[in-house]
Every structure is written in structure tokens, then in C-alpha cells.
């Protein structure tokens, strides 16, 4: 027993809402040993973050721990039960014995306080150091978390740093008082794969040095496999399976664990459809995987190559104005897209990968003439759209749609979803009567797996995955030929992501849609795309068929990207 650091027993955490009490964590128990890393995996809403906040007693004001016991048995501090502990002892524990790294460091750091001071604050509080020695300690910490130029970062405000650097500051803050337990709540979500890899490495290196225990919370099985010793899988507020990481990955017992593992697009083969969680939970544990083999791929490519070109981009250059002079005349430019050329066949999917800032989104916007094009040609069905007038462009854009990353902000919260889908049809005057349009909306709703009754509901009544389906239905309303999916599944849980990806593939087949599929997740791109473009600094560094790019990457940059993918245990 002596090596147990944190022990959670029958924890029940609830939230009081307008519609009564809702339990988010329904009686979970687990232990963390000293120096061990426990990974908690689950989808959003599974209660994993609530668990971590319950340990820290930092629940939102309407949340409360109903029952259960949380014991902390540290070297310097022993607390029989954290639940119901007085504020002063809790404050002594927080930051000092338990450090926490939050998701999205951009919002988790105070925007108007210098980074160094935010870290020094904890040191001065718990270790009672004065201002100058605390600064020394912070600079040392910054070196420890491998931040370049600690002096500069000490004086910098969060917005002046990159996402990875901010997360390193967060980590420095969490480990500043040498806590025995480090809780990391989705620390690498929203970071590029390469940055994610370096942060994960940093966390495990620090753990080796300090021998602290880590509670690592994530929705990404691949990530958890890289860092954790043991894994607990959470589903609907309960731990459904727990065990050593090897065992969970090699012989998962629970249907949910199996489905979570299966609905991640695999890297070593190109599947036709992804299994979803409901496939597994309905008892259909044996999902028959349909894979593209070399003959079927050859056939598809032969079919595609005979089709006509839908879109042809030639030597496209896009640049934004940088510094401006007195009269607003730009003095320098930022070249976002450099000499990009490619062609796209009808019904083909082009995958666009690269880190943030590589120019993927700008390129896709430039094709719609939504970015300042410097030179080049964009030929769509034989016509150069750069020569279009405003009216012609407006009509032409009807055939184009974009599906964005965040469905919540892409939908007007005060408009029923039926009207949201109806609106573009009315604006462009498609179909003759409004009855016909409404009928069409019903059809579209059914097509994306929603019901007719949903017509009069508002966006907040839907889950993230459903909202994205609504956005897809809206995009389809104008019968587009061409859809740009800009990180369309990045904000979704893996199981929901699988459903949306399947939907996109089905729709492509049915309507002969052409996609440009932008994502930072290379496994998703691999599954969706017929061809892949790898972008870096606005240039296409490599292009080819997915299996060629993944198996034999020619460029160093592509290799780096592929090596950074958390593989898990395959």
C-alpha cells in the first residue's frame, strides 16, 4: 500500500442544472502509484475532465462531489480525504503537491500578465522565495522545459508565444514546486503533431527526472499509448476497463474499448469505411473491415484518370500585406502560397496536410477567390475564375461550399437548423416554391442522419457531431460540385469523427462530389484522399498517392510529420 500516491474510491460528481441533477462521474475508483503514469481515455462528456477537476476540487460553481473518497499519500503531505477539506489545506495542496496542466494554454494563461510572473507566482506562494530568487528559479525551469531564450519568455505575454511554447510555460508552472502528482488534462490537443510529439517527450522526460506520478487525460488513444503505463477507459461517467497499456491495446475486453480502437483510421492500410461505436455497442462486435487493396485502388485510379479535370490550379501565388507605411501602402508582404500547381479530377478527393501556418487554408480560400491572389491561374471546368466579374463570381460560388472546423460557431444560434439549411436555397433562388425547398431540407436532414422533426430545433440542442452534420446538410443544399473540408473533423471525438467521415464518403459516392480535404491529422487524410499534397511554408513539398507518401516519404519534412504521428501500439 505504501507506494500508492493517490487513491480515488467511489467518486460521484454531479452538476445541478435547470433540468435537475446530472451525474457526470458515476462512482469510479482508481489508484495511482508513485512515479507511475495513468492515462484516462474517453470521449467528451465521458467525465474524464470532471474527474481531474474533482481531485483538484476546482469544479464549476454548480458542480459538487456527491460521495466518495480521494486520498493523497505524498512524501511530504498526507491527506486522508480531499473531499470536504478546508480551503486553506486545499490551497496548500494545489500547485504545491499537485500540479495541473490544462488544455488550450492560450486561454489557460492570463493574457495581461507576463509569462514569467505567472510561473513565479506559484513559487513565491509555496516555496516562500522572494522576487529575485523566484525569477532565478523560473529561468531555470524554463531551461528545463526547453524554452529558447528564457529571459525573453519571462518578459513575454502569452499572445507573443507559439502554442507549443505556451504549453511549455504551462508545464513549467505545473512542475514549479516539484509536485508529486502532475495532472495533465488534454495537454496536446489543438497542437500540431510535431509539437505534440515534443511536448509528450518533455512530459515523460520530466517524469523520469523528478519521479513524479502523472495523471494523463486525453481522448486520443494514440497519445495515451505513448505516455501511459496504465490506462483507464471512461464511458458515460464510469470506468469500463482498466489495465496495463499493452493489455488494453492488444486484447481489449469491453466493446467500447474495442470500438474506440477500431474507429481510428489506421495508418498501415486504407479502409473504405470506419466502424462506429454504435456498431460495437449494438453487439455487432465483429465489424467486417473493407479495405482498399492494390487492385481496387488501381481500378479507382484508372476511372478517375479518365474523368475530365474539374479544377486546375497553375502557379498560384498569394500574399498578404505585412508592414504598411503612412498612406496605408504595404512595405512588405507575407507570401502565404508560393507557386502552387495541381489538378483535381471530378469526384476525386485531394488531401492537404501540413502544420498550422503552412498555407493550407489560404490555398483553399484562394481557390474561391477569398484571399488576395498575386498571380497564377485557377481554371474551373475550362474557365479561369480569376477573370470573373462580381456577379459571375457570385453565381459560380454557389457550386462551392466550405465545411469548417468548429460547427458550433458556424451555425447561427438564433436560427432553427431548418431555416439555416433553407437560407442558401432561398438566397440563390433554387427550386420553384418554398414548399419544394422545405421538402428538400427534409430530404437533406435524412441524408445526413437526422430527422424531419429536427427542422424547428436550435443548434444548442444538438451535439458536436450532429452540428457538423447540419453544416454538411447546409453545404449540400446548393447541390455543390466541390466541397472544401477545412479541418472539418478535427474538433470531433474519434467515434463521432468516424461517423462524419463515413457520411462524407457516402455523399461523395452519391453526388459525385469533389473534395479538398484539409487536416493536420495524417491518418484521417490518408483514409479520405485519393491523392495527397504536403505543404510547408506555402509551398507544396511533396505530392502523390497516400500509400507512397506514407511509406516512402521523399522529403525530410514529410518524414518528420509522419514520425510525429502518435502510433500507439499496433
Amino acid at each position, binding site marked *: 500500500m505504501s507506494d500508492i500516491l493517490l487513491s480515488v474510491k467511489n467518486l460521484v460528481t454531479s452538476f445541478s442544472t435547470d433540468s435537475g441533477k446530472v451525474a457526470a462521474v458515476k462512482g469510479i475508483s482508481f489508484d495511482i502509484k508513485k512515479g507511475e503514469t495513468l492515462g484516462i481515455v474517453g470521449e467528451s462528456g465521458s467525465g474524464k475532465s470532471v474527474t481531474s477537476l474533482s481531485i483538484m476540487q476546482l469544479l464549476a460553481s454548480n458542480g459538487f462531489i456527491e460521495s466518495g473518497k480521494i486520498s493523497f499519500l505524498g512524501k511530504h503531505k498526507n491527506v486522508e480525504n480531499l473531499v470536504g477539506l478546508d480551503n486553506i489545506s486545499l*490551497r496548500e495542496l494545489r*500547485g504545491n503537491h499537485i*500540479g*495541473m496542466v*490544462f488544455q488550450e494554454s492560450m486561454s489557460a494563461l492570463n*493574457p*495581461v500578465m507576463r509569462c514569467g510572473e505567472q510561473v513565479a507566482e506559484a513559487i513565491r506562494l509555496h516555496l516562500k522565495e522572494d522576487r529575485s530568487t523566484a525569477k532565478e528559479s523560473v529561468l531555470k525551469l524554463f531551461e528545463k522545459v526547453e524554452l529558447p531564450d528564457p529571459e525573453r519568455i519571462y518578459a513575454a505575454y502569452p499572445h507573443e508565444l507559439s502554442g507549443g511554447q505556451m504549453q511549455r510555460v*504551462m508545464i513549467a508552472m505545473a512542475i514549479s514546486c516539484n509536485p508529486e502528482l502532475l495532472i495533465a488534462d488534454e495537454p496536446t490537443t489543438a497542437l500540431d503533431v510535431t509539437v505534440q510529439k515534443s511536448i509528450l517527450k518533455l512530459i515523460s522526460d520530466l517524469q523520469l527526472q523528478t519521479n513524479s506520478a502523472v495523471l494523463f487525460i486525453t481522448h486520443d488513444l494514440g497519445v495515451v499509448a505513448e505516455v501511459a503505463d496504465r490506462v483507464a477507459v471512461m464511458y458515460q461517467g464510469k470506468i469500463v476497463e482498466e489495465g496495463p497499456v499493452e493489455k488494453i491495446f492488444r486484447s481489449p475486453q469491453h466493446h467500447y474499448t474495442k470500438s474506440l480502437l477500431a474507429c481510428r483510421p489506421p495508418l498501415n492500410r486504407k479502409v473504405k469505411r470506419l466502424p462506429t461505436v454504435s456498431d460495437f455497442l449494438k453487439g455487432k462486435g465483429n465489424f467486417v473491415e473493407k479495405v482498399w487493396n492494390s487492385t481496387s485502388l488501381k481500378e479507382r485510379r484508372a476511372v478517375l484518370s479518365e474523368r475530365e479535370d474539374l479544377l486546375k490550379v497553375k502557379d498560384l501565388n498569394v500574399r498578404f500585406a505585412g508592414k504598411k507605411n503612412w498612406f496605408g501602402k504595404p512595405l512588405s508582404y507575407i507570401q502565404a502560397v508560393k507557386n502552387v500547381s495541381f489538378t483535381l479530377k471530378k469526384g476525386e478527393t485531394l488531401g492537404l496536410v501540413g502544420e498550422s501556418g503552412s498555407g493550407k487554408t489560404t490555398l483553399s480560400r484562394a481557390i474561391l477567390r477569398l484571399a488576395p491572389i498575386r498571380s497564377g491561374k485557377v481554371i474551373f471546368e475550362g474557365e479561369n475564375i480569376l477573370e470573373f466579374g462580381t456577379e459571375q463570381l457570385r453565381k459560380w460560388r454557389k457550386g462551392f461550399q466550405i465545411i469548417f472546423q468548429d460547427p458550433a460557431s458556424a451555425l447561427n444560434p438564433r436560427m432553427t437548423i431548418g431555416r439555416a439549411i433553407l437560407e442558401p436555397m432561398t438566397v440563390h433562388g433554387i427550386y420553384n416554391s418554398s414548399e419544394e425547398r422545405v421538402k428538400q431540407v427534409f430530404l437533406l436532414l435524412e441524408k445526413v442522419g437526422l430527422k424531419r422533426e429536427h427542422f424547428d430545433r436550435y443548434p444548442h440542442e444538438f451535439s458536436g457531431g450532429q452540428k457538423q452534420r447540419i453544416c454538411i446538410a447546409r453545404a449540400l443544399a446548393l447541390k455543390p460540385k466541390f466541397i472544401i473540408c477545412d479541418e472539418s473533423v478535427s474538433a470531433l471525438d474519434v467515434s463521432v469523427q468516424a461517423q462524419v467521415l463515413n457520411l462524407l464518403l457516402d455523399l461523395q459516392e452519391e453526388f459525385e462530389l469533389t473534395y479538398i480535404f484539409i487536416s493536420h491529422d495524417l491518418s484521417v487524410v490518408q483514409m479520405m484522399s485519393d491523392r495527397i499534397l504536403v505543404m510547408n511554408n506555402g509551398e507544396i513539398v511533396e505530392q502523390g498517392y497516400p500509400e507512397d507518401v506514407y511509406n516512402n516519404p521523399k522529403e525530410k519534412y514529410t518524414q518528420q510529420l509522419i514520425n510525429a504521428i502518435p502510433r500507439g501500439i499496433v
Partner: protein
Amino acid sequence: MQHYIFRKLSYGLLVLLMVILLVSSIIYLAPVDPARLTFGQRADVETVKAKKEALGLDEPLYYQLGYYLRDISPINFIRTNHPAIHQYNYFKIFSVSERMFIMKKPYLRDSFQQGRPVSTMLAEAIPRTLILALIAIVIALIVGIVFGIIAALNKDTWLDQTIISISILGISLPSYVTAIIFALIFGYWLQAWTGLEMQGGLVGLDDFGDEKIFWKNLILPGLALGVRPIAIITQLTRSASLDVLDQDYIRTASAKGLSFVKVIRKHLLRNALNPVFTAASGWFASLLAGAFFVENVFGYNGLGLLTVQALLSYDIPVILGAVLFTAGSFVVLNILVDLMYGLIDPRIAKQ
């Protein structure tokens, strides 16, 4: 940054020019003869005509306007023997034959009624109004921020509801109504208890006929003027604090082990008060203008009272001078507010 300030200043000059054009057209087009008003009940036609000539009121409107602009411009290119020159307090830069290039203090002319220079009259009145507005805004900031934070921390309780209800009442009351109510309650009914007067200026004559500053005469006008800002700052602070309380970095601060008071002081306040301070400095400018009513009700001898009296007697130079000052302070304060944004929030300075 310099470009930005330069551009703002040029817009400001344009605004001032438009103000002069607008105000002077309204005044000059009104069917009142200022020259006639300078005399009492009896005045013969000849005297009025002579006065009119002396004031330059017989010239065409655009001439009068041009002369006024010439008088208030800080730089002039003027004939050496020009009759207006002895009015100016100028500094010669260079001269070309008959003309010279001068820099001067803007000449706001003399009051029609009192014959004193308008600049002297403004210089007396402005500090009094400035003190009044400053007191009002300081009261408003202290009371408003405290109540706003109390309301935010007790969201949806009776305390919060009460504070909101009172502040809505405060916003809806026009300042002259508040002023009259305050004067009546504290200056009349409770006069024996408060010892405050219903009316009285900051500078007055004491029992021995010497000039004396009556600080207590600041209290009631200051409160009356502060009511609306208090109400608005309370609501602003409340909503900004609620926003900030929801932010992740507040949770981060608690996760560090900081005490509740420290989280509020070091992390909440600075983020929540950005909009409050900038709004307050904007309000300061409007308080200078809003003081018109309050000063009038309390007979407080500041800029507002001066302007109202000038309006009643068609004292054109005083009206123009006062309006120019008010408009100018709006322009300057707005630029200062923009600069302050950058100081308080480093994210904005970068843009």
C-alpha cells in the same frame, strides 16, 4: 503609433472646425441681436448701431466666421499694421515686406456682456468643473467597481438583483432630475443635519467679503453628477467580471493554490477592469459636458453655469469658447483612451 496619433489629431481638428461652423451658424441665424442685449431696457438706435459695428456684427456672416478663425488660429500670416494685431499675444517668426508670420495664443475675444477676455473667464471656470467631474468619476469608479464585483460574485442572489435594479434606476434618471432630488433631500429637508447648501459655487465670498473656497459645495453636485456613471460602471464591471470568472486562466490561478482574494485581485481585476477604465475615461469627457445641468441646478460657478448664462444673454464669444473647449476635450480624451487601451492590454498594443 505616431501616424496614428497624427491622423487622430487631424480628424480632431476637422471636428473642431465643424463645431465652430455649426454653432456659429445657429447663433448668428437666430433672430436675436446680441448688441441690443448688451444694453438695458433703454437704448437708442444709434448706440446699438455703434455697438454692433464695434463688435463686428454688421459684417457678412462669412466675414465674421473668417475673422473668428483667424483669431483662434495659433499661426497667422498677417499685415504688420493690422488693427487686430494688438489684441494678440504673439511671437514673430519672420516677416516678408509688409506682412509677418506669427505664432500666438488662440484669441477667444472678449465677452459681450462683461467685456473681460473669454480666455480669462474660461480659465476661472474650467478648473472648478474639472474638479467636479474628477470627484464624480472617482466616486463612480470606487462605488461602481465595488458594487459590480459584489454583484458578479453573488450572481443571481438577492444581492445581485438589488444592485442591478438600483443601477437600472440610476441609468434611467437624467442628471438634472437627480440633481434636483439631491438638492431637495440633502440641501433642504436634511439641511440641518448635513449642513450642505442647496446652492453654492466652489469659490464664493465669505462673511467678510473675501474670496474663499467652499469645498463642501462639491459634495452634492459631485454625487448628483456621479449617479449615472456609478450605475453604468457597476453594470460594466459586473458583466466583465462574469466574463472573466468563466475564463480558463482563473481556474489556472486557483490550481496554483492562490487564495480567493488573490485570484480576484491579481487575475480577475486587471482583466475585468480594462473595459471599465476605458469607458470611465470616455465618461469623464461627457461629465464635463453633463455638468451643464448639474451646475445650473446647484448654482455651482463652473463652465456649465458660465455657458448657460452666456446662452441666455447671447454672449457669442463665451458660447463659442466654451463649446470649443468641450469639443476639444472630447477629442483629446478619446485619443488618450485609445493609448490607454494599449497600456492596459498588451494584446492590443501589438496591433
